[in-house]
């Protein structure tokens, strides 16, 4: 059974329609990459999945006992965070807010969860550091740890490697792949089509043409070939 099904979704804002007739599903353990040009509506799709926005038409259906509030989310960075005085621990712990329920304060289990997710991503030594003073790669790990505090089943990542240097990007991709191997379903927006193809099990291509299928199917499809070629330039003969 699918964890998540999107049926005939139309996405857009007041007077613009971005995509129409979007149909796809995500099963447990899959790794879906969403690719497409800037402005294609990838972030909008993610917000719709998270119920931050309503679709213009169609529906998002959760199954297998998954709730939209039990998804870990790594948003595209917002401006506020750039000079926000917060320690790494405070940020990661805030990932437990959905476990608060009616409680006012975090309990021992929440704190333990925050610490274990920091260990999982290798940032436990940064616990007392100030979030804003860390490098882009470290910040993304922290936000990933926060997202992990909110879920054990599904992560939604909106361009997790944008602005990171190649080495750190590779580490980030490895980290995400390992999480996927541990059984966490991944939906990731990516600009980097080469890595998307390398790591994902499924691809959703948004744009004038919509493609949804397994990564192998994508590589054989016309959209896939064209997009892979366009984004490859001349640097592939090495």
């Amino acid at each position, binding site marked *: 059974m699918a964890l998540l099904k999107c049926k005939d979704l139309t996405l857009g804002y007041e007077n613009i329609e971005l995509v129409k007739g979007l149909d796809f599903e995500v099963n447990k353990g899959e790794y879906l990459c969403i690719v497409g040009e800037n402005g294609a509506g990838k972030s909008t799709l993610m917000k719709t999945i*998270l119920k*931050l926005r309503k679709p213009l038409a169609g529906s998002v259906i959760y199954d297998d006992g998954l709730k939209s509030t*039990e998804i870990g989310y790594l948003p595209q960075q*917002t401006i506020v*965070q750039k000079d926000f*005085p*917060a320690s790494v621990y405070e940020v990661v712990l*805030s990932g437990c807010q*959905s476990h608060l329920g009616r409680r*006012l304060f975090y309990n021992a289990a929440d704190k333990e969860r925050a610490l274990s997710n920091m260990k999982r991503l290798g940032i436990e030594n940064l616990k007392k550091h100030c979030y804003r003073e860390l490098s882009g790669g470290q910040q993304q790990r922290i936000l990933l740890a926060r997202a992990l505090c909110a879920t054990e089943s599904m992560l939604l990542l909106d361009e997790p490697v944008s602005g990171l240097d190649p080495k750190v990007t590779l580490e980030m991709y490895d980290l995400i792949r390992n999480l996927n191997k541990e059984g966490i379903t991944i939906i990731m927006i990516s600009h980097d089509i080469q890595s998307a193809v390398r790591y994902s099990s499924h691809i959703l291509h948004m744009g004038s043409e919509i493609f949804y299928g397994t990564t192998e199917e994508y590589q054989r499809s016309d959209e896939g070939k064209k997009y892979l070629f366009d984004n490859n330039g001349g640097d592939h003969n090495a």
Partner: protein
Amino acid sequence: MLDKFVTYMAIPLVRYAFIVGVLIALCSSLLGVILVLKRFSYIGDGLSHVAFGAMAIAAVVGLADDMVLTLPITILCAILLLATGSNTKIKGDASIAMISVGALAVGYLLMNLFPTSSNVSGDVCTTLFGSTSILTLKKEEVVLCVVLSILVVVLFIAFYNRIFAVTFDESFSKAVGTKVNACNIFIAVIIAVIIVLAMNLVGSLLVSALIIFPALSSMRVFRSFLSVTIFSALLSVACSSLGLILSILYPVPVGATIVAVDITAFIICMIVGKVTGRG
């Protein structure tokens, strides 16, 4: 000097002023941290002008207790400005400026058209910069202030974790099911309450100084949300105490003195931040 201070403190009215001053400084610094981080520093300014306008209306209508009118109007504006957040058609800062200047002008106009005393510019000056004498607080006002302040501090502590989460990353909070809108309205209401209270002490022009200076100072030196919040509260209490003492000992206006002390503290914190390489 100490004698003079002790003599003054024996007078109930001076004690009232002290209690109110310290409590307001405490509350406004707590909220200041949120406002500065949410990029809403101007809202204090805007709302205090709204409160000024409402006060003018109350005076014209002849209400004995202007709080009855000032508080609801300010709360309403606060919700409109803060809670609607980023989705509003009019951009946030522009709408704040609009409401702020509009309320100020209308208030001033009303005070001139329907003067309630012979000294209009004196009245206006008092509402804008606070009373030059701190001995004008009535006992009921002090009680109200104490009750509301305790309420604000208790609520702030109770919702501290949610306030942090929502301020740090609204969309993440929303995604995991935190009631972000309720939280924003709650913050807006508290801010309106503080501003109306603080107007009595420092006047509407200086309210925003009381709100933003301690937070900005603290952010220069500290790096976790908890330490910034705590230091901001301590600093604000210290600065307004010092300002109050100075205005008791010397013939200087309370509001402006407190703000001057706050500015000095900010400069010191800036230097400390630079020296320790954190600013």
